[in-house]
């Protein structure tokens, strides 16, 4: 009996200790709003994971130094608990669970990549934790009826359909022949769906539709077909590997195609790694520093880029910019909700309608941002061989005129 009592008191002591430790770590401690984020700091997404984290940190510092978040007449500062998800979806889901049930986090920031966001979203949804994410663009994230997921970026299916519309426009409104090669992952396949929609809308025909493996490092077969069938547009999406492999092999095999559109040129540092060979490639981007959106915290894209470079020593890729924007959205929602009640904050997020340096933000019922179009830039090189990305579409922000068709290799 005595032993039972000892065990019972030991267990209850543990329970009390555990519950108090959870309480002490809850969402708002003193003047701090604690957000949670599982980010890929190691593993295959670590480069972009670090871009994401830098974006978050930059915004936290900026918002805190400019007065913080005002809720209920009191000023709060942001703080983030980070965990490394090792680029592994299972680990990301576990960490989301841990952030919520052990660390007591009540508001989350998204991880890097659609795959990891897909793993985390069911967890945040289960606990009713609002999550603002900046790096999961897959369309399937927004068709599941999630109520607590909000993405500041445009969905993947919108990445390259501007390219098809532009090609049709340049073709005098007549349909074009499209060749496409997409990696077999959630994101690239969504980009593909967007192209299929655009093709149907414009009456264009898809003449090559290749799927690339995850271990992709050779797409010679696709390019041989492109050489033979001479499409009007070649669309490639396979993350950084896809962009680098395509440019290398297109240059080596001297594949002539009037328009080449791709994703991830930024992340692949295309113009740096391939120099003049990457010239004329059209790239889809969520953001470019030359866009003229404005806000009170970062002013505009150019100022953001300069400040970011000063702090982290490199030009910000769009992954960082959109991550910073996620914090601005949270701040705005907390202040409008004027409360830390998760439901109220969720409703405030759903009603977001604001402009940030990154773009306009307004969420559709599915959680995706519907107020920010994608931009297309083209890699342009000068005679000395130094290359730059210039926005060419939509026309409102174009800083250079699209060069079309791409000059033949024999004429370069």
């Amino acid at each position, binding site marked *: 009996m005595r032993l039972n009592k000892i065990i019972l008191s030991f267990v209850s002591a543990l329970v009390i200790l555990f519950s108090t430790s959870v309480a002490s770590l809850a969402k708002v401690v003193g003047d701090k709003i604690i957000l949670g984020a599982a980010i890929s700091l190691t593993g*295959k997404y*670590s480069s972009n994971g670090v871009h994401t984290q830098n974006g978050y940190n930059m915004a936290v510092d900026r918002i805190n130094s400019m007065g913080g978040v005002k809720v209920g007449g009191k000023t709060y500062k942001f703080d983030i608990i980070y965990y490394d998800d090792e680029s592994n979806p299972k680990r990301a889901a576990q960490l989301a669970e841990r952030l919520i049930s052990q660390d007591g986090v009540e508001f989350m920031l998204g991880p890097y990549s659609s795959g990891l966001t897909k793993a985390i979203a069911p967890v945040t949804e289960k606990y009713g934790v609002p999550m603002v994410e900046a790096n999961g663009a897959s369309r399937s994230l927004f068709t599941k009826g999630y109520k607590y997921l909000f993405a500041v970026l445009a969905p993947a299916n919108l990445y390259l359909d501007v390219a098809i519309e532009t090609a049709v426009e340049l073709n005098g409104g007549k349909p074009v022949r499209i060749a496409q090669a997409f990696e077999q992952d959630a994101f690239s396949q969504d980009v593909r769906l967007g192209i299929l929609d655009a093709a149907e809308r414009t009456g264009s025909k898809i003449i090559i539709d290749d799927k*690339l493996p995850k271990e992709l490092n050779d797409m010679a077969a696709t390019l*041989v077909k492109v050489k033979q069938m001479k499409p009007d547009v070649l669309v490639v999406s396979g993350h950084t590997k896809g962009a*680098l492999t395509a440019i290398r092999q297109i240059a080596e095999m*001297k594949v002539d195609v009037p328009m080449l559109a791709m994703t991830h040129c930024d992340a692949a540092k295309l113009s740096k790694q391939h120099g003049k060979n990457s010239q004329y490639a059209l790239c889809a981007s969520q953001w470019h520093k030359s866009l003229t959106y404005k806000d009170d915290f970062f002013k505009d894209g150019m100022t953001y880029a300069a400040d970011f470079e000063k702090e982290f020593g490199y030009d910000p890729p769009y992954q960082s910019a959109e991550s910073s924007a996620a914090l601005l959205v949270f701040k705005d929602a907390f202040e409008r909700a004027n409360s830390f009640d998760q439901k109220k904050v969720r409703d405030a997020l759903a009603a977001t309608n604001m402009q940030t340096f990154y773009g306009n933000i307004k969420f559709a019922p599915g959680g995706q941002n519907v107020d920010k179009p994608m931009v297309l830039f083209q890699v342009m090189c000068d005679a000395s061989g130094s290359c730059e990305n210039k926005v060419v579409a939509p026309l409102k922000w174009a800083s250079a005129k699209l060069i079309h068709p791409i000059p033949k290799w024999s004429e370069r």
Partner: protein
Amino acid sequence: MDFLVFQYPMITLQACLDGILLGVLFALIAYGMALQWGVMNIINIAQGDLVILGGYIAYFMYLYGIHPAWGVIVAPVIMYFVGIAIYKLVINKVVDRDLFISILATFGISILFMQLMNFAFGADVVLANSGYGTTMLFDNNVVLPNSKIFSAFISIVFAVCLVIYMKKSKLGRAIRATAQNARAAKILGVDTEKVYAATFGINAALCGVAGALISITFTIHPYMGLPYTIRSFMIVIVAGLGNLPGVAMSGMGLGVFEEFADYILGTEFRIGSVFLLLVLILVYRRFKLSRKREYLK
């Protein structure tokens, strides 16, 4: 299914040439694997990761302004010592053990290498530009990047040198003797410990050469090693151990097979078709063995 490859003879030719050039490179990696498998009875799962590490050596030379082609000389030298170090630290403890233990050990090395490379070099996909240009054949209908031709040529040079070395040199003879019967070789005064270390070093050096060539022709990334391990395993399984012409032929055969699978089934089935072929060959071998057994009965 797409039979475009058979409709235009030029595409058929292109696929064959691409496949052969690729296959020669695979054969070089597989030769290293066959050598060490034959001598030490170790299946090295980290083979592909050694290849990628070799690729990074060439890539860093390229970053520092040295032409990456010099990587085919520098990478094997560095990788030889990396191989010896791996042998001394891990492999010598598992060399006489069960095959399963060695697979586990090299699997561990593979994971460690991936993470270390990711930590040291970052997760970006990188490549080294050779600036070698392109060879156009048949009125520009068949296109061969010179970097692929260079890779195949260097692979052949290294393979030939290695064959001569194994035949003529003292160490080569010791390696072959150990492969035939380690115990007998030991009794006859061969220091098998040294032979094992050298064999693992030579294998790592071959991986280094192949890696440098891959950084010139394709792309490298810390997590891209496994497909190379699988391909070399496949080639060795088909060719059998200690059968160099077999390794070369099955390497090229696999290269051509992959290219055709790519054209006919689609790029997404490229690696899958290699697996399928592996399964078919293993089943066939088993079938052949069981018939032999029946005959013996």
